[in-house]
């Protein structure tokens, strides 16, 4: 992931902090946001160890609470979604981070933070790890507006790589060509290619499972 919000947002942050009613210490430090290559979720991370998975999950939760920019940037990538309090539009990944950096300071008593990592025993058997958490936090506008309560849930999914590291899955963006595929039909086994469905009509792809 490449993020370079730090430099781009610096003027904006300075202006916000210089506003007459700016609350003190509301993000005085400009977060360092550099490229995050690969992923090392916890010290001595072991993707087959439940405690290790939990530790890395909790580390991100703490990062959220403490406004630690780099892990947050990693969590809130393109595929992540977060709903702001009523009146503010829901934002995704990069946008969220920009909004967080430019407009709002998090005030999150850690005990208000609830994590739900699903069943780690299941995670360890699978080629991926999902991190999801319920959160309750208070967002305070840097320009001195009223604090706003927010709660919701976020989820990020990582795929296990052959070397044991985990990487975030990215989907194609709107405007990108859809990845082509050919798969067997559920019954009968006839092959259906995406290319065969294109040409005349739009195509709707519905991905899902039973549980």
């Amino acid at each position, binding site marked *: 992931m490449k993020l370079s919000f730090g430099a781009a947002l610096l003027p904006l942050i300075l202006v916000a902090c210089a506003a007459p009613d700016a609350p003190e210490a509301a993000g005085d430090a400009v977060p360092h946001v550099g490229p995050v290559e690969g992923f090392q979720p916890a010290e001595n991370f072991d993707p087959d160890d439940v405690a290790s998975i939990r530790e890395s999950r909790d580390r991100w939760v703490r990062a959220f609470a403490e406004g630690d920019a780099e892990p947050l940037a990693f969590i809130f990538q393109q595929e992540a979604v977060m709903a702001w309090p009523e009146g503010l539009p829901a934002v995704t990944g990069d946008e969220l981070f920009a909004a967080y950096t430019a407009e709002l300071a998090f005030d999150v008593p850690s005990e208000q933070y609830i994590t739900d990592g699903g069943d780690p025993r299941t995670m360890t058997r699978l080629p991926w790890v999902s991190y999801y958490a319920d959160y309750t936090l208070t967002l305070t506008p840097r320009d001195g507006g009223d604090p706003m309560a927010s709660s919701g849930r976020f*989820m990020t999914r990582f795929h296990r790589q052959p070397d044991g590291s985990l990487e975030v899955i990215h*989907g194609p*963006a709107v405007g990108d060509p859809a990845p082509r595929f050919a798969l067997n039909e*559920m019954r009968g086994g006839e092959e259906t290619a995406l290319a065969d469905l294109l040409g005349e009509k739009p195509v709707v*792809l*519905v*991905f899902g499972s039973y549980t």
Partner: protein
Amino acid sequence: MNSVVDTEDWYQASRDRANFLMVYIEEAHPGNTVAGMEVHAATTIEEKQALAELCTSGNLSLPTVLDKLDNAVEIAYAAFPDRIYVLDADGVIRYKTTPGPFGWDVAESAAALERLLAE
């Protein structure tokens, strides 16, 4: 998938104007018990087929294909645990939901398809 009925209704209402395809990917919650049966992650393509049939039986009549055991298509689309994409006839992605279950939105997807059809 939290709105099987909505999906089926949308398919029935729009199947003449767009090509629908369901891609069965993988169980989001292996180990859960559904209708008295514990659902496990498929380890063979036969198991995957059985799960896919369970998933769609009586509920969904969309043409359905099975992702392979390596879940390559799911990964290519970041589709876990469920997700809808709307493509134009040239195969360009014009709309996608955020990954479910929090982002799954049949109504928004249907609106996106209508906008595309109106172009």
